[in-house]
């Protein structure tokens, strides 16, 4: 009964919506909805399962049975459900029931291979599932093996898993890439029935998702009857995920869809502070006492912030007012692993009253009893807010409680918009992009490491993966050529080829050493160059001191701006910078607690398109201001009075003089990345028009440019006109010219070079430091750009930059939207709306000034001091 089905007719797609159940407990009973009962008539749980449910007074939830029925009908399926809906058990139910019905292995019979592969983005999640799944499996009395395989799994265990595979293997995308690059991949996977993909929504948007989709395509070739089960939080475009789960040959194929809506609605409020809400900044320091009193009123509070520096600051501020010495902890990805685990453990034991954290993914899994989520700073996206809030009350049937703390006035608007969006169930997860060519290059080499391949076959296989469905043959062949010899027009490296085309038409790895190197460098996660932060050993002095405790890792780029003796916040402490030696940063505790925290990343995520639009709509609708705190509504009324508020699809541009400079402030609300790109392009154009721009600053909401010439007068005289200044053609030559020298492109190139295998992340026996890699990829970039600008890797780099760091696509949409809708307001002085961004000037690094200017300043100081000039 539970064996493989030969007959796999595709049932017509019926999305199954379980409705907005006010009391989700109904989901525990199967018979509530007749339609479902009818559909599920054919599905019956094996006896031990029914008994297990009955013993606990439970019954399977409707979507769990639905998923089982779909899987048993031979279909792949996507389950979209909120946290706490029993997603994981649902995902494993087809495997468990099938394994339960499988006759035991008789002595002498060959060992069976992996039955189910579970893939999650987090190692910790895999480990957690092993624990959580093991319990019911044992209680039901199933005889099956469940094991994890991650980067932490010892070599001997991995070796043993190859010989005696478990029935269910819990692993990560990187491990899958390694498994399919092994020569025994075909045998290892021959009995595979299901692949369960957890947290699919977070996997698919990244290059890890691209690599995973290629791995799945490979598995589908190895095991044609393979079924996938995707588990996801709510997403904007479920169909994209449904396509992602199945072969795109024929094109457009989709997995079945099961959606569980509802759960209790969260109770979300925005802090209506007694204090003055600041104009600018990200600290939300003003609200500390109010946050503290909320912590005191709740059992356990989870505090989310957007960046590590915000986390550090909030943690400091809370302890400053923590008169009751409540156990408040800090958790972010830069901290030392041991410290993170301690915090997670305390959290699981309910020993903490509050925890300050950066991202849901940074955290382990065991959440304890969180009864309040505080979100400090704007959430930047409605989906992100929903997911973070979902972390409180892991049970679906109780409402989560959340408070939003805007850090400045624009964030008040953004929080309000996010809050309205959450109630509307609006979603703004980013659209999926085409698969990266650098990732494809890695995969091609991986395939060759596994077994010789024919280019025609691999091309067809790759195109079954949704992110690569539109890949053309020419590009594919260039990628294969790149893997072989670098793909350079100057055919210099034929004799050093990594893979070679043999007479039989198959590509083979030219040397076993290549496969060894590949295995060390698999994956798409590129770490930002970071250094250990280590205490100078107490009592020791001078440069010879070492050996203190490691506090965690911190980005090199930040440390480079520090000078000996500077103080900064890290790991919840104020530290004094003592210098860098041997790739470690040495620090000591700084007595007193005044840290000079220089700019250290504003918002990590740009404002989502959806939220940006909501903010513009709100600005345009004074009726909605009533929901805003009085001081913020007043601010908008002032703006209407002194200048003008933009209509929802307009772009407002203000110009005004201040000091001996002239300012132009634009309010596109398109997010920091797009604004930064716009700022670069506009300053170029203004420079050509003779405005002599000096620099610009971009925030999520606005862009300010300052200059020596009167830009307001120039625009009024239509020299140049605003329409010409903001014409879409700026995305042509200007963008190309600027990009050529941009550090953004160099950074992106570095990632592509590492992922594609041009440069190794790791070489047998040696670790390259981030610094060494950075230097060399920058040099390679310069050389490649001037000698072969159309090289496939530069093509991949430009594609990445357009969607990533530059957000060109979003800028393009904006430029087309505002055609004929640009409103110019020339003012005698700064407007209320301009205050926040004007305050950012001086706090943020100013773009548009060449590094040489800084050298000039330094050299001038010398000349003055030396009296040479």
């Amino acid at each position: 009964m539970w064996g493989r089905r030969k007959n796999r007719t595709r049932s017509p797609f019926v999305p199954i919506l379980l409705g907005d159940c006010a009391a989700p407990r109904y989901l525990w009973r199967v018979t509530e909805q007749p339609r479902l009962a009818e559909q599920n008539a054919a599905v019956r749980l094996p006896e031990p399962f029914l008994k297990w449910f009955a013993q606990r007074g439970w019954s399977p939830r409707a979507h769990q049975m639905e998923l089982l029925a779909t899987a048993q009908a031979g279909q792949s399926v996507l389950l979209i459900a909120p946290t706490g809906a029993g997603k994981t058990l649902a995902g494993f139910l087809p495997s468990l029931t099938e394994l339960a019905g499988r006759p035991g292995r008789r002595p002498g019979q060959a060992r069976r291979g992996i039955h189910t592969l579970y893939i999650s983005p987090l190692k910790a999640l895999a480990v957690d599932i092993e624990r959580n799944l093991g319990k019911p499996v044992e209680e039901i009395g199933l005889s099956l093996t469940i094991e994890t395989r991650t980067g932490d799994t010892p070599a001997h265990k991995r070796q043993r898993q190859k010989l005696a595979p478990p029935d269910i293997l819990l692993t990560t995308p990187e491990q899958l890439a390694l498994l399919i690059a092994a020569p025994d991949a075909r045998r290892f996977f021959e009995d595979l029935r299901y692949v369960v993909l957890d947290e699919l929504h977070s996997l698919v948007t990244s290059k890890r998702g691209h690599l995973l989709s290629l791995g799945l395509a490979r598995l589908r070739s190895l095991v044609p009857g393979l079924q996938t089960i995707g588990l996801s939080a709510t997403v904007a475009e479920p169909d994209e995920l449904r396509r992602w789960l199945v072969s795109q040959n024929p094109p457009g194929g989709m997995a079945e869809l099961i959606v569980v809506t509802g759960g209790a609605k969260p109770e979300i409020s925005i802090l209506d502070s007694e204090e003055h809400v600041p104009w600018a900044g990200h600290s939300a320091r003003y609200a500390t006492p109010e946050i503290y009193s909320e912590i005191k009123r709740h059992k356990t509070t989870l505090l989310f912030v957007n960046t590590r520096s915000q986390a550090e600051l909030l943690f400091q501020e809370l302890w400053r007012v923590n008169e009751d010495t409540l156990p408040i902890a800090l958790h972010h990805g830069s901290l030392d692993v041991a410290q993170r685990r301690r915090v997670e453990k305390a959290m699981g034991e309910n020993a903490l009253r509050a925890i300050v954290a950066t991202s849901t993914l940074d955290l382990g899994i065991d959440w304890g009893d969180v009864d309040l989520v505080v979100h400090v700073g704007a959430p930047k996206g409605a989906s992100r807010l929903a997911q973070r809030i979902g972390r409180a009350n892991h049970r679906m049937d109780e409402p989560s409680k959340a408070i939003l703390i805007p850090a400045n006035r624009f964030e008040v608007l953004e929080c309000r918009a996010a809050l309205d969006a959450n109630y509307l169930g609006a979603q703004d997860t980013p659209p999926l992009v085409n698969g990266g060519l650098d990732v494809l290059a890695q995969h091609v080499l991986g395939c060759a490491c596994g077994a010789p391949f024919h280019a025609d076959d691999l091309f067809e296989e790759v195109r079954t993966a949704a992110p690569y469905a539109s890949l053309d043959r020419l590009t594919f062949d260039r990628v294969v050529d790149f893997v072989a010899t670098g793909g350079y027009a100057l055919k210099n490296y034929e004799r050093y080829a990594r893979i070679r085309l043999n007479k039989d038409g198959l590509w083979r790895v030219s040397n076993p050493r290549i496969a060894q190197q590949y295995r060390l460098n698999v994956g798409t996660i590129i770490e930002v160059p970071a250094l250990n932060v280590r205490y100078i050993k107490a009592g020791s002095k001078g440069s010879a001191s070492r050996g203190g405790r490691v506090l965690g890792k911190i980005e090199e780029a930040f440390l480079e701006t520090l000078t000996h003796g500077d103080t900064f916040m890290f790991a919840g402490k104020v530290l004094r910078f003592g210098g860098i030696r041997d790739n470690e940063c040495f620090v000591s505790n700084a007595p007193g607690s005044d840290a000079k925290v220089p700019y250290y990343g504003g918002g990590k995520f740009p404002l989502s398109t959806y939220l940006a639009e909501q903010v513009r709509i709100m600005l345009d609708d004074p009726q909605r201001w009533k929901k805003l705190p009085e001081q913020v509504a007043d601010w908008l009324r002032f703006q209407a009075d002194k200048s003008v508020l933009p209509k929802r699809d307009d772009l407002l541009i203000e110009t005004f003089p201040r000091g001996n400079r002239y300012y132009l402030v634009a309010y596109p609300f398109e997010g920091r990345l797009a604004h930064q790109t716009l700022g670069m392009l506009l300053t170029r154009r203004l420079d050509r028009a003779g405005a002599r721009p000096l620099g610009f600053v971009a925030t999520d909401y606005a862009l300010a440019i300052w200059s020596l010439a009167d830009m307001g007068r120039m625009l009024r005289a239509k020299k140049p006109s605003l329409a010409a200044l903001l014409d879409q053609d700026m995305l042509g030559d200007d963008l190309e010219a600027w990009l050529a020298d941009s550090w953004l492109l160099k950074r992106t190139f570095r990632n592509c070079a590492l992922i594609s295998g041009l440069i190794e992340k790791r070489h047998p026996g040696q670790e390259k430091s981030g610094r060494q890699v950075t230097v060399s990829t920058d040099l390679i970039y310069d050389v490649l750009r001037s000698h072969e600008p159309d090289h496939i890797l530069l093509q991949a780099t430009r594609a990445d930059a357009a969607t990533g760091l530059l957000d060109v696509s979003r800028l393009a949409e904006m430029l087309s939207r505002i055609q004929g809708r640009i409103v110019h307001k020339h003012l005698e002085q700064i407007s209320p709306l301009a205050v926040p961004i004007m305050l950012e000037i001086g706090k943020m690094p100013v773009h548009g000034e060449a590094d040489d200017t800084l050298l000039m300043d330094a050299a001038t100081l010398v000349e003055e001091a030396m009296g040479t000039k």
Partner: protein
Amino acid sequence: MTFALAMTALLADADPIGIAGERAICDRRGVLYFPELRLLAVSDLHLEKGSSLARRGTLIPPYDTGATLLRLQAVIADYQPAIVISLGDSFHDGGGAARMHASFRERLEALMAGRDWFWVAGNHDPDAPAALPGETVRELAIGSLVFRHQPSAVRVEGEVSGHLHPCARIVQQGRSVRRRCFAGDGGRMVMPAFGAYTGSLNVLDRAYAGLFRRETLMAYMLGTERIFAISHAMLRPG
């Protein structure tokens, strides 16, 4: 522009510095020129580094030799030196000269024609480059100057060397700028690496310990338009 005019412009641009009494120009492109001697010094070309790495499976673009030669061609065209000294590590490995593409070899030979050309032996290329003209020497003394690849451990006046690939870093307005540089204290000079794929090492690194008189150490950082002379006190490690 005629050669004489170009020369005047170049000389006017740069403030010559003194090395053991000899007048020298630190060119922003990373070469050192001694006008009185009509001598051009360049260090650490690391030609064929690309193919050297490719042999070990890292297929980085094979254009570094071409790029380096192109830049060398430009400075030689500007200064028209009578003597050229390549201060060691001219090739990334001993087989580099033999591997060099024929077109690059021709370009290099054209540059060498009509000049006294010295290959100073480096640690990467201790032997004479295969089938190339020019004279290979361990070190070279001209006037009060001595040219060698590795700076000597004891302090010597008038030494010009390479090997260390110096760079310097400053922090201004919360931003960090790192550039290749000439490092000199008036007595000796360590030249920046010229090759397209050469990395660099901060002059404050331990590898430079004892080489310079700290109080007169200057880093001549390579800017896009000119050289910037930065004193020791402003330099940052890392």
